[in-house]
C-alpha cells in the first residue's frame, strides 16, 4: 500500500528551480531513502510532503490527505526530524518531550521513549549540553511522540562520528520494525545503502534513479574490484631477499601489472587491470569473479598479498549517472 504519492512535483524559489517534476511512491513499512548532493532538492521535496511548503505544481497525497488543505490532520499522523531545526538551549530533555507531547491529542508515554533512546540519565540535562548523538536521539524521540505512521528523518547523522552513526542506523531500523514507514533524507550514500529498502537518487531537482540499493548498484555499477599487492622482487631476486627489499608502497612496476594482465587475459569476468596507489587493481563482474582471478593468478605463479575486494557503492552509481562525484 502506498502511504505517500508524489506526482509531477515542481517548486522554484524565484528563478531557482529546486524541484523539477518529481514523482514517486512510498510503500507502507519501508525505509525510503532520498539521496543526492546538497542542494539537489531533497529537503524541499520532503517539506512539500510534510505540508511545510506548498508546491508550485503537482500533487502530493500522504495517508490519503492533501498536505495543502489537510495539513493539520496530516501533522497528527507524521513525525518529523528536521534538518537545522533545534530546541532552545536551556530547555531540559524531559521538558522538551513534555512540551511536544502537549501538542498532540494522542501520544505514547515519553518516559518510555527516554529509556528506549538511552536518554533517561540525561532527563534533567539542558539541550545545549547534549552531545550531537544525544541531540539526534532526542529529535527522533520527539518525532515518535505522537506514534506517527510515517517518520521523516532529514540528515539524521550529519556531524556524528562513525560509532554514533552506526548506533543511529540501528535505531532507525527499530523504528521501521515497529511498523512505521521511514523517509530518510541523506547526502551520505553509505547510509542510504545500509539502511534503505528503496532509494530515490535526486540530482538538480530531478529523480535520476529509483530502486533498491542492490539493484541500482547491479544495474549501474555492478562492478567488483580485487585489490592486492604482488611482491615483485620475487620475480627477479632469490626468495631470501624478499623480506628486506619488498617495496611496500611504491606503485607496482609496469612489468608486474603486465604479468598480471597476461595471466588474466581471456578471463571473461575481468574487464580491466591497472595499478593504483601502490596496488594492483583488477576490475570485473560476476559472483565467481574472485575465484576466477585468484585461480588464474595462482596458476601463473603470482601470489596476491593483502588481497581485498570492493563492491561498487551508491557513490559509484551516482558517478555513473551524472559523471560527477557526490561530494564535488
Amino acid at each position: 500500500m502506498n502511504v505517500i504519492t508524489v506526482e509531477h512535483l515542481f517548486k522554484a524559489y524565484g528563478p531557482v528551480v529546486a524541484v523539477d517534476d518529481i514523482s514517486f511512491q512510498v510503500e507502507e513499512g519501508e525505509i525510503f531513502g532520498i539521496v543526492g548532493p546538497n542542494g539537489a532538492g531533497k529537503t524541499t521535496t520532503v517539506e512539500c510532503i510534510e505540508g511545510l511548503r506548498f508546491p508550485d505544481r503537482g500533487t502530493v497525497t500522504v495517508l490519503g490527505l492533501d498536505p495543502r488543505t489537510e495539513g493539520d490532520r496530516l501533522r497528527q499522523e507524521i513525525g518529523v526530524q528536521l534538518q537545522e531545526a533545534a530546541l532552545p538551549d536551556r530547555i531540559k530533555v524531559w521538558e522538551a518531550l513534555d512540551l511536544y507531547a502537549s501538542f498532540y491529542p494522542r501520544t505514547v508515554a515519553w518516559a518510555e521513549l527516554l529509556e528506549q533512546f538511552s536518554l533517561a540519565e540525561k532527563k534533567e540535562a539542558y539541550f545545549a549540553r547534549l552531545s550531537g548523538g544525544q541531540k539526534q536521539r532526542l529529535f527522533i524521540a520527539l518525532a515518535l511522540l505522537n506514534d506517527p505512521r510515517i517518520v521523516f528523518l532529514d540528515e539524521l547523522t550529519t556531524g556524528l562520528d562513525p560509532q554514533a552513526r552506526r548506533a543511529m542506523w540501528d535505531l532507525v531500523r527499530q523504528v521501521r520494525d515497529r511498523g512505521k514507514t521511514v523517509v530518510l533524507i541523506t547526502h551520505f550514500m553509505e547510509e542510504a545503502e545500509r539502511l534503505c529498502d528503496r532509494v530515490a537518487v535526486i540530482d538538480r531537482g530531478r529523480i535520476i534513479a529509483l530502486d533498491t540499493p542492490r539493484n541500482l548498484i547491479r544495474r549501474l555499477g555492478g562492478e567488483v574490484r580485487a585489490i592486492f599487492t604482488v611482491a615483485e622482487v620475487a620475480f627477479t631476486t632469490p626468495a631470501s631477499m624478499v623480506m628486506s627489499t619488498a617495496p611496500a608502497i611504491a606503485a607496482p612496476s609496469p612489468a608486474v601489472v603486465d604479468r598480471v594482465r597476461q595471466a588474466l587475459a581471456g578471463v571473461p569476468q575481468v574487464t580491466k587491470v591497472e595499478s593504483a596507489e601502490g596496488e594492483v587493481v583488477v576490475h570485473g563482474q560476476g559472483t565467481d569473479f574472485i575465484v576466477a582471478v585468484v585461480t588464474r593468478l595462482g596458476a601463473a605463479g603470482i601470489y596476491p598479498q593483502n588481497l581485498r575486494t570492493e563492491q561498487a557503492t551508491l557513490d559509484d552509481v551516482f558517478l555513473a549517472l551524472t559523471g560527477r562525484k557526490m561530494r564535488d
Partner: protein
Amino acid sequence: MMRAWWKLSVIQLKLFLREPEGVFFTVVFPLVLLITFGSIFGNEPVPEFGGRGTIDVSVPAYIGLVVAISGLMSIPVSAASDREKGVLRRLRSTPVRPHAVLAAWVGVFFIVTALGSLLLVLVGRLFYGLRFGGSLFNMVMAFTLSTLSLFALGFIIASVARSGRVATVIGMATYFPMVFLSGATFPWEMIPKKVQTVAMVLPLTHGVQLLKGLWFGEPWSAHLVNVAVLLGTLIGGVVISAALFRWE
C-alpha cells in the same frame, strides 16, 4: 490547544528565568534604580515635582522602564533567536497553532512585566511611603495598553531582525533613547523643552505620561493624545508584524 498553550507558557517562563540578563534588566535593574534614588532623595514632597516626592514620580516612570525592556528587548530577542535556531521551524511541523506560540510569548512577558512593576510598587510602598492617588482599575488599563503597545513594537523588531544578535542590536538602539528621553529614567520635568518636543515621537513617552497621570488620579480625558498614540502603535505593530513575521 489550551494544554499546548499552557505548556508553551510554562516553558517560556522557565527559559526566561534561566537567562540571567533578562531577569536582571526586568526585575533587578529598575529596583536598584529605585533604591538608589530613594536612598539619596527620600520621598519628601518637593516643588519641582509639583509637591510630590522623588519615589512618587519615579515608580510609575520605572514601570515604563520595565515595560520597555520586555517589549523592546525580551520579546524581539526571544522570538528572533527562536527563529534563528530553528525552534519555530520545528514547532511548525507539529499541529500546534502559531497563535498558541504567540499567545504564550505575550502572556508570559506580560506577567513578567506585571510582576517586575508590582515589585517596584511594593518596595516603594514599604520602604519609602509611596503615595498613590489614582484608581487601581485605571492603572491596570493604562499598564495593559502601554505594555501591549510596546510588545507590538517589539514584534516589528522580531520580524525584521534575521537573528537574535541583530534583534539585540535593534532592541538596544530603540530601548536606550526611549528610556532616557521618555521620562522613564530621568524625570520628565528635568528634560529640556527642546528634547521633550523630540521625545514626543517616542511611544514610550506617551506610555510613561499615561502611567504617571493616572497614577495621580488624572482623568483619561487629560491623556487622549497618549492613548491615541499607544493605540496607534499597538494596531500598527500588529498589522506590520503580522505581515512581516516569518517562522523560518
